């Protein structure tokens, strides 16, 4: 065979690009309602991918199906595949507990546990049976989350004594402490002021060296600042979210291929 098929070409490209997460024709349903319709997004290792789109277009739903958090909603079910490191997250034997350990998540509102700063970071390692030096792991995680210098003298204080931005960085440190292979962020700055937002965005840049990040954001400037790739989602008349365009962020913002993307990023709707 001299000619390769298109499918083979796509596969070859994925290997070349080192795809860590491959979302294939993913649909998510809540009961009879289809929230996400046939979305395909390949995510490259050590890249930041942002999901943008109008409210209710299924961005968060899509994100929460990448670590099986949607399993917590009794009526939720999915169709399609999510290949993570080559394994389908929805294969019959896939264990959501294991998946959530490997795919970390940072939520919209900072949600530290009502425990000390130290215990918050140590929570993940502890429940997963970490046997090494916990102090070192906590320090390293807090350093990675750019919070260590601010909290090193008060690790035993309540996490609730921190400001909102610090709490969110603590939640990121907590996620980092289990060394996830992929980090999902669901509008991590929407409850923060601009300065705290900037700190988180800087942090995302730093984390990129070691981690892969998928981030949902309402803020298009943020998508432009932090992400390498951007997926623009929209919704149909039946409110099912679908993918309009997925490309390098630069491309999406300067030269979108789809009229709807252009309208959205130029602020004509949404």
């Amino acid at each position, binding site marked *: 065979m001299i000619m390769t098929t298109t499918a083979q070409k796509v596969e070859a490209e994925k290997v070349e690009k080192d795809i860590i997460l491959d979302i294939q024709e993913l649909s998510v349903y809540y009961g009879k309602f289809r929230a996400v319709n046939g979305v395909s997004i390949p995510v490259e290792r050590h890249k930041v991918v942002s999901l943008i789109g109008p409210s209710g277009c299924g961005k968060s739903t899509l994100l929460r199906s990448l*670590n099986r*958090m949607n399993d*917590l909603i*009794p009526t939720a079910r999915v169709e399609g595949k999510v290949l993570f490191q080559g394994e389908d997250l929805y294969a019959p034997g896939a264990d959501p*507990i*294991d998946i*959530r*350990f*490997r795919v*970390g*998540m940072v*939520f919209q*509102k900072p*949600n*530290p*546990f*009502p*425990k000390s700063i130290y215990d918050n970071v140590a*929570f*993940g390692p502890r*429940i*997963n049976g970490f046997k090494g030096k916990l102090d070192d792991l906590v320090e390293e995680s807090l350093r990675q989350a750019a919070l260590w210098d601010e909290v090193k003298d008060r690790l035993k204080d*309540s*996490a*609730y004594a921190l400001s909102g931005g610090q709490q969110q960085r603590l*939640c990121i440190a*907590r*996620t980092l402490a*289990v060394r996830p292979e992929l980090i999902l962020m669901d509008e991590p700055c929407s409850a923060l002021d601009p300065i705290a937002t900037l700190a988180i965005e800087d942090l995302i840049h730093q984390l990129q060296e070691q981690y892969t990040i998928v981030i949902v954001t309402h803020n298009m400037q943020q998508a432009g600042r932090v992400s390498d790739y951007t997926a623009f989602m929209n919704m149909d008349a039946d409110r099912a979210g679908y993918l309009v365009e997925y490309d390098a962020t630069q491309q999406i913002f300067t030269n979108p291929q789809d009229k709807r993307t252009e309208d959205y990023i130029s602020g004509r709707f949404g």
Partner: protein
Amino acid sequence: MSISRQERNLAGRRRGDRIFGFVGLGATVLGLLVLVVLIVDVAKDGLPNLNWEFITSFPSRRPGQAGILSALVGSIYMLSLVALIALPLGVGAAIFLEEYEKRGWLASLIQINIQNLAGVPSVVYGLLGLGLFVRLLGFERSLLSGALTMALLVLPIVIIAAQEAIKAVPPSLREAAYALGATKWQMIWHVVLPSAFPGILTGVILALSRAIGESAPLITIGALTFIAFLPDGPFSPFTVLPIQIFNWVSRPQAGFHDRAAAGILLLLAVLLSMNAIAVYLRNKLQRKW
């Protein structure tokens, strides 16, 4: 088209406002007044009798020497057993209903029955305890039979209180635990229970406050009224404060009535301190974070 000053009738509405304020005040004062009169009346007879000797003496045929020691110790002993039995059962049931079987016909069925059980007269629990614990299981008229019966009686209160406390734990904390790879039980043990604990504790103490005042079920299962020794274990015969009080009140001698009044004061004191402890613990644990 605007509303005229006359139509607005500001003065009239303000008057109504004031009148209702007084009605509310009156209702509150009336209720409290009855309670105050009751306590003052009991205190008048009881206080002179409420001394260390009364608390540390066993009951006696002579009113002047009758003390409440065996009943007080019996009550404390029984309440401890009730707490030990009702806490794990109640919290376990609440966790099952809130975390494991939240919807579905089974949960609804259990839920309705728990609410119904909370309204069952206490004497019915006494009959159940008599049949089940005293006779069938052969625990006799022991502290254990009494404690098991009382535990069943207060179980609905504990379950409902624990359910409310568990419900109040923010979903965002559950999600945070799950997102770190926690199993359901780890999430419950490390996140839900610590957060719900103050509420559960309050519920348990309120349930114990109910149990300390109950006498009907214990009389039904055959708690004795005259005990001149301290219980030496869970299989010991026993008596409790309300039964001792009831016994004294039903005697013809006036001296015993004064002893009953002193016993009531003691019962109230124990009850109020338990509630105080509940409030203290709740505030302390909540303030921690």
